[in-house]
């Protein structure tokens, strides 16, 4: 009986995992050309030159199978950072403000577009 309740609780917990449609794009405010950009398990096409931004991408994000991580490749190094999630079902832009190739730091912020 207790095991049944435990399994039910677990299933209930899993059903509350964050899962929804996300619309996002990435903007490059750094002075570097960014390649191999990946967000929420989705590889973005092409590269982003300074001050360029990608098209919007749409994904059904499930935080049990994907990760809220932005990966980007710059000057021979791969950078990763957890990205914030919008509280509502908004379109968002992840703005990469700075990539410090010396200290290997990356700074990003999220802009809610609508």
């Amino acid at each position, binding site marked *: 009986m207790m095991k049944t309740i*435990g399994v039910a*609780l*677990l299933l209930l*917990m899993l059903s509350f*995992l964050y899962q929804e449609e996300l619309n996002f794009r990435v903007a490059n405010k*750094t*002075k*570097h050309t960014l390649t*191999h*950009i*990946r967000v929420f*398990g989705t*590889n973005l096409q092409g590269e982003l030159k300074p001050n360029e931004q990608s098209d919007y991408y749409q994904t059904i994000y499930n*935080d*049990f*199978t994907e*990760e*809220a*991580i932005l*990966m*980007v*490749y710059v*000057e021979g*190094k*791969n*950078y*990763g*950072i*957890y990205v*914030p999630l919008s509280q509502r079902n908004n379109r968002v832009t992840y703005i990469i403000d*700075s*990539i*410090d*190739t*010396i*200290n*290997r*730091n*990356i700074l990003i912020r999220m802009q809610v577009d609508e």
Partner: protein
Amino acid sequence: MTDYEKTELVNAFYQLRSGADMITDMANFHMDYFNMDNIDANQMDIHFNLPNEQDKEIFLVWHRMLMFETEQAMQAINPKLSIPYWDSSADRLETSPLWEEDFMGSFEDNWSLNRNFGHDGLLPSPQSITNMLQMSDFFEFSNFFERQLPHSGAHRWVSGAMVTSASPRDPVFYLHHTFVDKLWHDWEETHDASFYLRTDMLRYDGTYVFDGETLPLVNPNSIVDSRALGVFYAENGLATLDNYIVSNTHLPEELFYYRFTIQAGDNFIAAENTTSHLQSISEVILTPGFLAESGSNFRASIDAETTSLLARNNQQQYPREKKPFDDVELEQVWLWSEGEMDAKDPAVVMQTFPNPFDNKITITLNKKKDCVVEIYNLTGALIKQEFFEFTDIIEINDLYGLAAGTYVVKVVDANGETLVAKKVVKM
């Protein structure tokens, strides 16, 4: 933790950051292999593995080895040290002693960590930990653990370096991942179901060299029980040591040092020709099932030395930071003048305005490059750091509003080369 343990642990982190700099090596390795799926999904990595990858869910075991490697290095400094765990589901306040200046707070400015508590996410609740530990399938458990708050929460909540793939740069990373490891230990004690496809791991494949020493090849399946590394987690004031045979595999004397009561029994065996020591600040209890074999060198003792050690240690605090300008000639104050040429690099031109300096410094480089401006006080503390991206003009206004005084200005490029290093006096 006792004051002695805290002081020694902080000292050890600073010591690991000096010389061969194990902290930076680990941070760079963690960053380089964090996740490679944006480049090549078939390449091995250590986070967020895909279901069809051979190294799927290597996350838990890889970080267990990283904690063990760190703890071994610390024990070479002080055998009584072990990495404590930060239970982020219980110790949730930014006013916690965890973050005080004599502990993890010590590193915030000295290592430019830019922590911003609560900025990027929440810590896990105790209930979420309890629920997670009920999951029975190892891959589901590991996957959930890695992606959800029990692991990611602390990274997001601390923010700064912790929210990036270079998170081992922050010492609290090690306290957090020791907690992650303890939870995996707790889960494995209940479910006994951890399993890996691979027989080696990145960094621990028998080829990686750090500081002249080749790290061992480690089969992940050989360390799914933390006892294989001689690790026993204490909880609620009690360290229970059981089902273990002392082998001296990793250390010539295995020291089990706890401030808590140690209870050893239930097939804890000090084997023949091995050396081991159980040492507690409070109490050591040997229960049925404990065996010290004939020919073993076994001791159990109460540590009464820590108070005097602490007093001595306070007078011998390890330097918090090697002065980053030790190579700078400080006898001569930089004589600011407009357009002064740097003798080492004629292409680097310094200008101050007005002259004498009290307002603006301009540094002109011969070509655009990434560089960092660092301002230090004369004790070696980093006061200000600013990254300049792909530029050939660096302007520093009012020396970042710092008070009048003497500072060292250093500009370093992406190759780690010092472009400019000068002692300056702000009027």
